[in-house]
């Protein structure tokens, strides 16, 4: 490819080299974690203490400041993983594989968190912990998809093969996700559930919306920081046989 000769490409290659990324990811991870952590704290206090009660759902709606950010972040995570999968398969950037690998547990956690918070929220709203509501059901399928990625990466021993197989599966899942969402929505309307949507379309008052938006932004920061931290670990693990990692872990002085 002619593109592989351009300075931009060479710069990109150097920038994504594991030792370099390991180095530059640290301040970013730290910064994002701090900003995200503080913002999340502010958003939560705002949402828990100062935001008014919902006239329909009472105080249980305050779960929204966890549920919606984690659900939205889990979707965003899926989108970024699909992009990473393309980068991995087309341009064969090692770093993309490492980030992708560590996105899996984070995405899995976010999806699980959205599901659990949704279920707990369901109890005061619907009177039961679980309703086969369209959003919860799609979320559940998304959890299955994340579990699948994790399972195949664990099952294949050769690192490189595991990476590529996972990337393929991510893309297949990504193409399927809108189809799944659409079909679940259709299924849901057909069975006409007698429910209030926990996150309804009703317009929210500003006092609720503001902390919600802040908590979403904060969650994105924390999630990005977590992925960076985990990627740093993945780099250490995969490059453990190299000199620079052993220096990094303080192993070379000892012998």
């Amino acid at each position, binding site marked *: 490819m002619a593109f592989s000769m351009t300075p931009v490409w060479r710069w990109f290659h150097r920038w994504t080299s594991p030792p370099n990324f390991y180095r530059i990811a640290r301040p970013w991870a730290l910064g994002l974690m701090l900003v995200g952590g503080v913002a999340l704290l502010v958003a*939560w206090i705002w949402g*828990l*203490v*100062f*935001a*008014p*009660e919902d006239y329909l759902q*009472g*105080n*249980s709606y*305050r*779960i929204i400041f*966890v*549920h919606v950010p*984690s659900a939205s972040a889990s979707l965003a995570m899926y989108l970024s993983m699909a992009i990473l999968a393309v980068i991995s398969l087309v341009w064969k950037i090692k770093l993309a594989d490492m980030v992708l690998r560590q996105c899996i*547990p*984070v995405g899995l*956690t976010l999806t699980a*968190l959205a599901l*659990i*918070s949704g279920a*707990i*929220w369901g*109890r*005061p709203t619907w009177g039961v912990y679980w309703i086969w509501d369209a959003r919860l059901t799609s979320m559940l399928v998304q959890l299955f998809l994340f579990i699948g990625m994790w399972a195949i990466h664990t099952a294949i021993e050769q690192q490189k093969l595991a990476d590529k197989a996972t990337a393929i599966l991510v893309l297949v899942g990504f193409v399927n996700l809108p189809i799944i969402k659409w079909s679940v929505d259709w299924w849901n309307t057909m069975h006409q559930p007698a429910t209030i949507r926990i996150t309804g379309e009703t317009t929210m008052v500003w006092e609720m919306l503001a902390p919600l938006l802040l908590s979403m932004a904060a969650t994105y920061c*924390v999630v990005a920081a*977590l992925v960076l*931290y*985990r990627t740093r*670990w993945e780099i*250490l*693990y995969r490059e*453990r*046989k190299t000199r620079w990692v*052993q220096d990094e*872990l303080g*192993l070379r002085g*000892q*012998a």
Partner: protein
Amino acid sequence: MGYFDSFSDFIRMGNHGVFVWSVYGITVFTILGHWLGLRLQKRRLVTEMQRLKKRGQL
């Protein structure tokens, strides 16, 4: 304080306290879990590498 009349009101959240607080508790626990898990993995890697080093297999 804030929207609530008293601190105990805030904790009770109009009988929804259990639900709200458990969700927030689980969230905090999850974030901490990721962080602690990573530290643990890293420590395990270092000890494993030290063992390899001692045996001269590095």
